[in-house]
């Protein structure tokens, strides 16, 4: 029904590890264009939006126009956690189950059941972003890690055309990471209006694993609107997170 082979299994391991923290289960959609997933978490605060174009797979076959399959992320993540360096990933989906194989010199094969869920076609959130910053994935991850121990809220503040501040606030402590375009901690930076907006830090922590295997992270937001974080992979794939703001 659907099958793909992907060169680096670890990228999927990191992506699914992030998604697992946000979603219990959801439905993938495979079309001739590529593989996608779009779902909201139960509290409707976060949306996960994954898209992998067909070309980024070494092999890709869909039967008919499209195929969809429901997945339990905790189960899939348990299996993908076994992915090692130099493993290629193969996924075979039939009527009721999913076969996950790691292919290197040998083959390790796992089977997990499909979850019976209807495919929901959610629209993309309609937001006009006033700030857009492209950062190296490591810069983004380190900043989140710096703030994690002391903060529960992240506030993004576009200070001017050069500086973006990520401020973390907790009950008793606070801290901040400052990114600058001119000093090279941002790859690209565009500010239409110097806006500020706050989000729960935990969701940024969840994104960190997915960012581990990525090159670039793009952050877009505007005042009191959701933040959109795109984790961009070298092979053309992208995992996007939308997080609702905290309003004071």
């Amino acid at each position, binding site marked *: 029904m659907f099958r793909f082979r992907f060169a680096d299994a670890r990228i999927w391991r990191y992506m699914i590890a992030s998604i697992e923290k946000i979603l*219990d289960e959801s439905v993938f959609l495979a079309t001739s264009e590529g593989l996608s997933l779009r779902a909201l978490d139960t509290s*409707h*605060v976060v949306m996960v939006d994954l898209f992998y174009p067909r070309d980024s797979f070494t092999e890709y076959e869909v039967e008919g126009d499209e195929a969809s399959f429901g997945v339990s992320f905790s189960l899939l993540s348990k299996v993908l956690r076994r992915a090692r360096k130099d493993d290629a990933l193969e996924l075979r989906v039939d009527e009721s189950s999913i076969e996950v194989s790691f292919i290197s010199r040998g083959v390790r094969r796992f089977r997990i059941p499909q979850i019976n869920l209807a495919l929901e076609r*959610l629209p993309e959130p309609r937001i006009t972003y006033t700030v857009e910053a492209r950062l190296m994935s490591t810069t983004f991850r380190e900043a989140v890690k710096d703030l994690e121990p002391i903060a529960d809220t992240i506030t993004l503040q576009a200070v001017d055309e050069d500086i973006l501040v990520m401020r973390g606030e907790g*009950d008793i402590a606070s801290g901040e990471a400052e990114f600058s375009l001119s000093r090279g901690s941002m790859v690209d930076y565009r500010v239409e209006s110097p806006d500020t907006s706050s989000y729960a830090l935990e969701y940024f922590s969840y994104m960190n694993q997915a960012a581990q295997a990525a090159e670039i992270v793009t952050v877009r937001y505007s005042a009191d609107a959701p933040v959109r974080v795109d984790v961009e992979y070298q092979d053309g794939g992208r995992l996007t997170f939308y997080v609702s703001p905290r*309003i004071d």
Partner: protein
Amino acid sequence: MPRIPPELCTRCKGYKLLCGLPRCPILDRFRVQIQAATLVKGNSVEGDSPPSVLVGEYGYPRVRVHYMIPPGERGDDAAYREAPGEWSRRREPLSRIIGLRSGMVSATIRARVQDPWRLYELEVSLAAASSRPVDSEAELARPPTPRLLFDGVSKPIGPSAPAVRVRVSSNPSIPRPVETAISDDELASRMTVELYRRGVDVYTIQRMLSLGLLGRLRRRRLVPTRWAITAVDDMVSRYLRERLRGAREVSRAEVYYGEYLGNRFLIVIKPGPGSFEWIEAWHPSGVWTRGAGGLIFWRLMEDPRGRATASDGGFSAARLPVLEHLASRGVVGDVVIIREILPSYYAPVGNWHIRETVRRALESGPVAVDPLEGELRDLISSKLTVPLREVESRSLLLGLGRRVARLTDFM
């Protein structure tokens, strides 16, 4: 945790009340201890243990197990010394609970947590799982002398002395599901849920877990009582959350209220996927807040999947009856629990009262249904002494001021 500066107490000797508490907790305990101690003849105690057994955490993995016996007391009177549900139903005052607890002599047994079997052979473990009081005798190394502890952390424990020998002389009455669980070579988390489903009350499950009666046979451990209590609350709550997955949301907000032992609980259940918010407000001059200049706040949140921003035994105790209530109705909802602790809660007696007061608040029905924002504000102001703005500025889930937007608002 803050302690009473002993200097203060030595100058006060219990009648000046320099500490600011309405009664002296040390004196309170002392009085009943003397009473129990005088009932002990020589070095041995005899009576029905309710059963009441406590595993300490000090010195872990070498811990003290307190086996408590009310001298000369039998049957229902003895049982009432370990009856949290009943105490709260009758709204027993703090002084009476301290009296009930301190009127028992604690025979202290040293044990290694890796070896729960020794207690099992002494029949102490089985006695702890009994549904009726068990006739017990203890021979003590010395007469139990009233000891004064200045820490205020410990649950009221009566005069204690090291046990030379503990004998359980009547047969513990062990309900069938409890008996099965003890002999089952199965994970403690599964057995806990199984016992709960079969109607065994959480206090019995706590004692069983604590005495190493649950779990894979070769990996059983004694578990300090404080840890076991929260572990059982959490394991049962996880099961209830699982059962409620996919359930429909409550259709409108409901507000509940309960007060007992100087602790007030305002509970709001509202449409939502099942997040919890816990806000504690401690008044100064309470048990832990002697030196405080004002209200002390503590807050945590738990998402619908049961991931909390911090772990807290009080919250775990309050969440359980809320999830039970939701499960019995087959609905989910977002829940805000505001706990206000008044100075009249002058001695800590364990977190059972949180579980029971919240349970009773829910049983007695909502004090408001589908309140407008203004009504909710009025209700908070009238039921609690905490200034409303302190609550508004902290709560994310109440929707008064601060809140988390939903993504669906932007689609």
